[in-house]
């Protein structure tokens, strides 16, 4: 039974913390006077008849998954730190190779444009942006996000968005589409 | 080591088939034909040489010309060929029928299709391997492989329902082989379990025969039934025959010839070599069942044949009767009966093969098999008529032709041990004469119909094709001694083997004197030079 005591304690602690948080916000927070307008969306305007569809870009899921990859890397790094002395060089090498694997996945994600954001990217994707993938382009994208690349010059006029467009999704291998459409 | 003639006999047609398949498209049209026919004739030469060189006499009852190579070593499987008196003439008929069958065109116009020639050669190779194989695995493979070329040969025919017939043929025999498959494996494993430690388990027929006869009787009977079902489907014995009329009628002429002349002998040969020889006691116990099926087949096949309105179907049902006759002979367990059965297999190949060939000739002239449409051919095509008559009389069993010898031996031999079945089978011989002669009358006699007036007589090519068959028919009829002297020693030993296995079976007058029965079973088969060691091991460890 003794061995389960810490678990029980943690469980109790968690319960106390959860209940305590609610109680504290109840007690300490301001108490607005509630009325129907106050409870409506945006506290004003026409109340919607039905639940508006919740729309999330697929990109969010993608990001969530990318997060998990790095999360897992961290999860494995913790035990390494704890056991570092016992594992010695072997552990270090193993962890390094593990980190390398995760890094390769990261590099792949970047090259696929998974970390490129902004409307410029979307515009680029639609038009089939010129393929600008090379070792240097990938590395540059990682190291200096936002810096305009030479290939990005057609979009330079659009300022901030241009950089994102440069890294336009490489998923479409078509040749350069009419650039005027994009710029226009 | 002497010239491996049996390997050549098995592999030569296969090589020719490969060569035909690989011929370039631009090759002259006649080349495949001459390649196929040429290899068939060379094959026939080899086989005839084997027949001539085959040693006769009671000291040569075992397998001759054996050739043995390890094949699937870990499983005790070897490439093991050999010929004895029982298989010798079946091989000879095979070699004789195939070139003739290949020369017949599956369709009346155009050259011989290459696919037809190729499949026929593969079929010949597989049939040869089945007859010559002394290894159960090799036998099963060859037995199964006949299905694939058989399927395509039937598919190459002209019948309207040939695809149906081909598939039915394939599936029936495939399902039957399932039992053979299980049976062979079970025999092998049961025998292997009883072998003395250290002696290698093997699929070769000598090891199996030695071990199998000492298995518990119930096991033996089950195994024999498993083997029997497969062979009965192939033969086809009566309740398993329904694929046969379709297949024989839908196949092209050459296909029908080899299907009826050779392929069904695989079943009859199989029941003798791999059924009765391996499980003699069980065979004795189950003989009434087999004899009944055979006798029913004789009567039923004859009656149904008599009712047919289609000439080819009539001949096809005639083979059902013929098969029944052979089975009646084999399960008489007398020297005469079994010799007669073997001779009947050979005869049947010659006469039914010849009949199918002649029916094909009629069809080429009239494009029909309907008996109503034919009639009076004798006047317009006298040579065809006379040849047809000769072959038909051979099938009926006229003294002086080959059929007589076989039928006489079968009936004599079986009458000694199983009287009433022989009596029923005799009625079948009578019925056979009725339906065949009636058919002859309807096709050849009477006034020639107007449509039949203009047909030509046999061409020289056709005469050349039927001539070897006629020669065989007459030769065996007037001088069967070379045949019998080669068959008899092997059969004597087989009968001795059966008596040794089941001493309670008294075979009253087997004609060869009871001295031979003293031969212990382990000497039933002359042990070829290469297998002495394993034979010695087997002998030492016998329970």
């Amino acid at each position, binding site marked *: 039974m003794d061995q389960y005591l810490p678990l029980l304690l943690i469980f109790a602690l968690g319960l106390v913390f959860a209940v305590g948080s609610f109680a504290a916000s109840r007690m300490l927070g301001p108490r607005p006077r509630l009325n129907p307008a106050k409870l409506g969306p945006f506290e004003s305007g026409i109340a919607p008849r039905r639940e508006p569809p919740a729309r999330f870009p697929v990109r969010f899921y993608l990001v969530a998954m990318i997060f998990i990859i790095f999360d897992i890397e961290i999860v494995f790094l913790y035990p390494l730190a704890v056991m570092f002395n016992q594992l010695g060089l072997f552990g270090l090498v193993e962890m390094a190779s593990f980190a390398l694997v995760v890094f390769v996945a990261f590099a792949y994600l970047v090259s696929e444009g998974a970390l490129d954001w902004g409307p410029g990217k979307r515009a680029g994707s639609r038009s089939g942006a010129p393929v600008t993938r090379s070792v240097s382009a990938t590395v540059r994208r990682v190291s200096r996000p936002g810096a305009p690349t030479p290939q990005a010059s057609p979009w330079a006029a659009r300022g901030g968005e241009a950089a994102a467009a440069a890294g336009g999704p490489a998923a479409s291998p078509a040749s350069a589409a009419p650039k005027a459409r994009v710029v226009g | 080591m002497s010239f491996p003639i049996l390997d050549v006999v098995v592999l030569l047609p296969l090589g020719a088939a490969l060569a035909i398949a690989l011929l370039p498209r631009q090759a002259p049209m006649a080349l495949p034909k001459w390649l196929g026919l040429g290899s068939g004739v060379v094959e026939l030469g080899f086989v005839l040489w084997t027949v001539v060189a085959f040693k006769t006499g009671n000291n040569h009852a075992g397998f001759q010309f054996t050739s043995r190579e390890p094949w*699937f070593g870990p499983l005790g499987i070897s490439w093991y060929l050999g010929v004895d008196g029982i298989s010798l003439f079946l091989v000879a008929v095979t070699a004789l029928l195939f070139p003739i069958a290949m020369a017949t065109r599956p369709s009346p116009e155009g050259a011989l299709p290459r696919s*037809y020639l190729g499949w026929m050669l593969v079929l010949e190779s597989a049939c040869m391997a089945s007859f010559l194989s002394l290894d159960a695995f090799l036998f099963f493979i060859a037995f199964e492989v006949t299905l694939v070329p058989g399927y395509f040969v039937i598919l190459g025919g002209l019948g309207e329902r040939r695809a149906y017939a081909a598939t039915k043929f394939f*599936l029936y025999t495939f399902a039957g082989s399932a039992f053979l498959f299980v049976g062979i494996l079970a025999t092998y494993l049961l025998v292997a379990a009883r072998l003395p430690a250290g002696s290698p388990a093997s699929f070769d027929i000598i090891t199996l025969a030695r071990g199998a006869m000492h298995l518990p009787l119930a096991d033996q009977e089950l195994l024999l039934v498993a083997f029997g079902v497969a062979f009965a489907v192939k033969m086809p014995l009566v309740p398993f025959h329904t694929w046969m009329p379709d297949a024989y009628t839908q196949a092209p002429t050459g296909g029908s010839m080899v299907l009826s002349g050779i392929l069904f002998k695989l079943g009859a040969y199989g029941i003798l070599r791999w059924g009765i020889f391996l499980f003699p006691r069980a065979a004795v116990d189950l003989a009434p069942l087999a004899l009944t099926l055979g006798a029913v087949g004789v009567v039923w096949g004859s009656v149904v044949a008599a009712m047919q309105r289609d000439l080819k179907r009539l001949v096809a049902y005639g083979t059902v009767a013929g098969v029944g006759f052979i089975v009646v002979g084999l399960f008489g367990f007398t020297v005469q009966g079994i010799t007669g059965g073997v001779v009947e297999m050979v005869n049947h190949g010659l006469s039914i093969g010849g009949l199918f060939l002649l029916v094909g000739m009629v069809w080429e002239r009239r494009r029909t098999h309907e008996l109503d449409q034919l009639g009076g051919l004798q006047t317009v095509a006298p040579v065809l008529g006379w040849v047809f008559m000769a072959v038909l009389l051979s099938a009926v069993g006229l003294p002086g032709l080959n059929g007589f010898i076989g039928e006489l031996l079968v009936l004599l031999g079986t009458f000694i041990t199983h009287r009433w079945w022989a009596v029923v089978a005799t009625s079948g011989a009578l019925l056979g004469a009725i339906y065949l002669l009636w058919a002859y009358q309807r096709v050849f006699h009477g006034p020639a119909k107007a449509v039949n007036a203009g047909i030509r007589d046999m061409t020289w090519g056709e005469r050349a094709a039927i001539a070897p068959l006629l020669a065989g028919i007459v030769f065996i009829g007037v001088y069967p001694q070379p045949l019998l002297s080669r068959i008899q020693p092997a059969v004597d030993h087989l009968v001795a083997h059966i008596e040794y296995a089941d001493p309670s079976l008294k075979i009253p007058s087997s004609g060869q004197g009871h001295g031979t029965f003293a031969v212990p079973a382990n000497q039933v088969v002359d042990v070829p030079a290469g297998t002495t060691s394993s034979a010695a091991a087997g002998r030492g460890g016998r329970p």
Partner: protein
Amino acid sequence: MTIFAGTAGPGCTISNLVTSEAKVSGLCTAKGSLSIPVEYRSIAPVLILGVAALVLLVLSATLPKRRYPGLWAGLTALAGIATTVDGIVQWANLDNPANTALTVGGQVLYDHFSAFFAILFGCATTLGAAISDSYLSREALDGPEPYVLMLACSAGAVLMAEAAGLITLFLGLEVLSISLYTMTAYHRRRAASGEAGLKYFILGSFSSAVFIYGAALVYGATGSTQYFEIFQFLTGTVVVHDGVLLAGMALLVAGLGFKVAAVPFHFWAPDVYQGAPTPFVGYMAAVAKAAGFAGLLRALMLALPTQVSSWRPAIWVLAVASVLVGSVMALVQADLKRLLAYSSISQAGYVLIGLQAGTQAGWSAASFYLFTYLFMVVGTFAVVGLTQGRGEVRNDLGSIRGLGQRNPWLAGGMLVLLLAQAGVPLTSGFLGKWLVISAVIGKGQYELALIGMVGAAIAAFAYLRVALLMYVPAAPTPARPGQPRGEGGGEPAVAPTGPGAPSGLAEVAGDLEALATAGLGATATAVALRAPSTARLRVPRATAAAIAVCVAFTVFAGVSTPVLSLAHSIGLTWSL
């Protein structure tokens, strides 16, 4: 973790099972430090495949993004060949029994079985890559991703075969499964592909959960997840109340039975086979089945041989159901890929027949069967991938019609592969069935042997139907008898044309059709007989080579001994 907990007791005794004590996990000998001696040669196949996957990823991230025809497939095939070669080298190395070992912290078995399956999965990867390339470029799907998935999948499969415990087995299973889910759904523009992927994913995750639950119950009953520790526990202990153990075994069998598509866990297979990209189906049918069976063989024969009387009836039922349901259902399919799916279910039944024998003979028979089935199924699906046309528009039986005239060599190869699956002699399929059936007859189970062979005869009709359709003229559906008929384009060489021939092309073709569609529903018949174009198919070189290899191997393994001896000498090295 169990390795730490168990080392003091059973862990050390394991070493007695192994010929050389020094080779066993260092956890016993070196308790002070936790360094795990990794014998890299034992996991070399996994490393080769995994590193190849990473190399592909790096290349795709760094190379300028454009099409590289053949590059990705070539690299994948290269990795596959490397794996095969490595497997062969390891095999030779393992011929010395002293090299057989339990390595990597007791998680990996280094023995002939592992090497054999490394060779198997290496070949599968090579062939899979070879047949995928042309398909992917035809469907405009090319890129490195499917190959990365394929390599990862193979790595997982090898791991499953090498696993020395249920946890490692599960690890391999998940790597394999997740790659396969994605590969199934890879055809982005085909709704069926996505649907199949989702179905496979949901059912597959469920089965993984079932499996891990089973592993947990077995752990609960025996105190370990390592095969040898389970075995030792069960030999040393009489389990009186074995409910938990039985439930655990049942769940393990169910979880892996799903992977190998054994009836009644087969419902996903037809849908997934139908929807997934065709070359991937060939790869999947070979690899997922082989890996699932490798895991099942190891788990049942190494960990639970003492419970054989408990699991044999269950496997018996699965085997019979798979053989019969697979064969019978294959008869009524109008879709070629579905037909092959049911056929693969029935083939799984034969491996199960070998497995349930629970003997050395059954063990090597199952291995041989899986190895030869790989070549048959990959070759078959490669041909289907060619006949279906761009966009997988035609998967029905009719698509293969007339192939005998259009591409005689392709049809000939397909014929050999189909006959091999039907079990016709002189092909590896026959030898596989021979070994499996001989294994059960050796156990005296004649009824099972007969059921198996009857199933083979039923299935033969399904294969024969496809074979027959290949030789039906590809001409448009001919007119019914009585109507005037024209001479069709693709006239067979053997069809009569002469005046007065009682049967013309139409009737003959009609009969072939009638037979080829016997037993199908009316709609299915109509679909199956829609004639394909009579144009000759263009066969890409890599695919042609892969099919040729498959056919050649199928015949080679059917008539010669090397593969047979290989499978035969996979000993139950570890059994006591």
